[in-house]
């Protein structure tokens, strides 16, 4: 007997809305369909109305968890387009913020994964360890999330020498905590039973689906933009890419946990270097944006984040294209999900650390049934009409 189970669009498992339709036989998933699109905010279209400097703030709000990754990819694209060099100090600062974000994102994921398998204690413990990171962000950037540190040509704010000991201290506390978590997860027999061999994504499938980030690295695909096309300070510090072969949820967890150690290592080296460099000089101005196109990609916590910007020489970009890591990773979910039980679906989704805010930046409007082209005013007008209509339909 086949049953269709809808998951979502609003479901406690997911902080964000999306919709999975699972076709199950008994408890086994035999087919599934993914429907995204509940979170469109039209960011790509909105981007065309922002200046290049404002654009950074907009892309920061694509996703709250990757709120450094998108701006980095964006400024990289702008710098690629304008051919501007970034001061050394700014590069180290970029690396520090990006790695702190990776730590907080991976810990967040670990906590949620623990929550998904009904292990609330793990959730609480991990989020407790994550809290100092957020406080650290508040200290060095002024906000717990949405740091607004990036700026085309450099960074907006310096990390002062007086704040460096605080970063070191948090790293020193986090390292043993992460070690403890790694051991706990690798040694726990119940966790092993629950995670091992679940939701396997084979290396062939990983390549076929073009997955990125920890999802790819857990399947034995050795890619990492930080190493393959170094940006910020990643070519100036010692670290290594973590690759696991199994492709199951356990491997994905292990990749993330081990990456935390690498991040701590990178941050420590960057902090040491910041100590030596003189304060100030964190920004090279971009005098003029030439016509042309720029591509920036960056290793977000979830994988490669890809930004494409085209300029016609004016103040505003002509086209901004954002490819978030989840957009690449989510289709592979189907490959790793078929044949598994319903209880594991949640876990497998968690395994790729999906982020729908990123995936669904764009949106669209329509009117009537014949083909029509729209300019910006049309879109706004249509939107207002539609708003009115919906408001009437909803009786408010």
């Amino acid at each position: 007997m086949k049953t269709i189970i809808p998951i979502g669009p609003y479901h406690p498992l997911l902080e964000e809305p999306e919709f999975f339709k699972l076709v199950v036989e008994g408890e086994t998933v035999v087919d599934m369909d993914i429907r995204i699109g509940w979170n469109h905010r039209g960011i790509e279209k909105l981007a065309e109305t922002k200046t290049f400097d404002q654009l950074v703030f907009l892309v920061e709000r694509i996703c709250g968890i990757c709120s450094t990754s998108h701006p980095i990819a964006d400024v990289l694209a702008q710098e690629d387009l304008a051919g501007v060099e970034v001061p050394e100090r700014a590069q180290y600062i970029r690396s520090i913020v990006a790695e702190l974000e990776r730590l907080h994102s991976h810990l967040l994921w670990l906590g949620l994964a623990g929550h998904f398998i009904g292990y609330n204690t793990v959730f609480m413990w991990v989020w407790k360890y994550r809290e100092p990171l957020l406080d650290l962000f508040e200290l060095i950037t002024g906000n717990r999330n949405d740091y607004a540190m990036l700026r085309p040509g450099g960074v907006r704010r310096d990390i002062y020498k007086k704040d460096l000991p605080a970063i070191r201290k948090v790293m020193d506390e986090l390292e043993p905590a992460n070690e403890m978590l790694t051991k706990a997860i690798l040694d726990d027999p119940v966790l092993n039973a629950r995670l091992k061999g679940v939701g396997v994504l084979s290396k062939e499938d990983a390549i076929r689906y073009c997955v990125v980030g920890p999802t790819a690295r857990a399947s034995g695909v050795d890619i990492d933009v930080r190493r393959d096309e170094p940006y910020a300070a990643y070519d100036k510090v010692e670290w290594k890419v973590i690759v696991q072969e199994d492709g199951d949820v356990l491997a994905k967890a292990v990749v993330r946990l081990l990456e935390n150690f690498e991040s701590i290592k990178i941050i420590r080296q960057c902090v040491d270097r910041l100590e030596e460099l003189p304060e100030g000089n964190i920004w090279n101005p971009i005098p003029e944006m030439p016509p042309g196109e720029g591509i920036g990609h960056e290793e977000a916590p979830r994988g490669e984040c890809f930004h494409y910007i085209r300029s016609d020489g004016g103040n505003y970009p002509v086209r901004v294209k954002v490819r978030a890591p989840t957009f690449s990773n989510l289709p592979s979910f189907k490959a790793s999900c078929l044949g598994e039980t319903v209880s594991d679906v949640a876990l497998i989704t968690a395994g790729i650390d999906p982020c729908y805010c990123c995936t669904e930046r764009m949106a669209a409007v329509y009117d009537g049934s014949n083909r029509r082209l729209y300019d910006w005013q049309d879109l706004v007008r249509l939107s207002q009409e539609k708003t009115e209509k919906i408001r009437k339909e909803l009786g408010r």
Partner: protein
Amino acid sequence: MDVAEKIRAEFGERVDLAFRSPKRLYLLVGKGDLPAVARFLFAELGARFCTASAVDTRAGIEILYHFFFDQLSLMVSLRTLLPKPSPQIESIAPFLKGAEWVEREIADLFGVEFLGHPDPRRLILPDDWPEGEYPYLRSSD
């Protein structure tokens, strides 16, 4: 033999190569040749497909397929122009699973028809969206 030479050896005059910087290679490809070049890059040279981006220009809809060589740190972008109205191109999704959603998204937003796409349904737009409406096109006056 590096990537540019390999492509030139395989396709000759049919592909127009231009380096914008040592890390950015642009290939201007006719829309008929695009699937073959994409397949060559992906299957023979082992590039990873990043994404495709479309722009609505005066001349037509320009699609760029971005491939990245992780080991060589080289971004190769295939550029092709699809004349309006009713832009069409052969899909690369049959041999490149990762392009499936990317093409569905472009089809949604730009109205490009991908011939031979295995699953040409809507992806990003709501279900009640009428046929023939494409939000990312500009008015062409």
